[in-house]
């Protein structure tokens, strides 16, 4: 409200810059590949 964001629940911590946008199933496939590497 009115540019005030201080009351919002901010869910993302220091890992926010690591976010990659992709479909959920694809994301699991990527994580599984990276786990195996």
């Amino acid at each position: 409200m009115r540019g005030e964001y201080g009351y919002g629940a901010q869910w993302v911590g220091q890992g926010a810059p690591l976010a990659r946008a992709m479909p959920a199933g694809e994301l699991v496939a990527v994580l599984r590949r990276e786990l195996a590497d």
Partner: protein
Amino acid sequence: MSGLLELLRIDAPIVQAPMAGVSTPEMAAAVSNAGALGSLGVGATDAAGARKMIAAFRERSRRSLHVNVFCHAPASADPAREARWLERLRPDFARVSAAPPAALREIYRSFLADDEMLAALLETRPEVVSFHFGVPSPEGVKALRDAGIVLLGSATTLADARTLVAAVASRIASPRSGAASIRATSPTIRSRTTPARRSTPPGR
């Protein structure tokens, strides 16, 4: 690790966060079909909503489903105390030209006070159920375990972990440092623990 994969009947040690209001049946099914644990957070919906979400998942996947419930201590209404809080917060509302609400209400019904949700879970039997903000009643835990459901809990403090162990969760997850997590701080949640409950191995 392989024990955990077998217990949850998944291929990879990845659990989708069961975030209430954000995790959808489509997302959970995509995750489960990819070999991880797809999850639904039902803390912000009621038993009918949960049944709908679980059915929508089952239409899309035959693999394991994980459902998370909120187990906070149910709010006990105290209009006089709540009026004092609203009065105290009035200046904050005024700062953004808003009026405080006339009364406060509990926005999420706790699983501890939701027999219909328990019945829905016992009937639909997701493979995994996890708890947040506390643990269910001993009767609730027993009913879920007797239904063959694997129980998980999330611990962000040693006290959380002890609460979960006392409630006989099958596994305890500790969010990695830096991960988004919220913790139960209310001491009333801890007081709901059954102190003398005997620890038994996972019920499957």
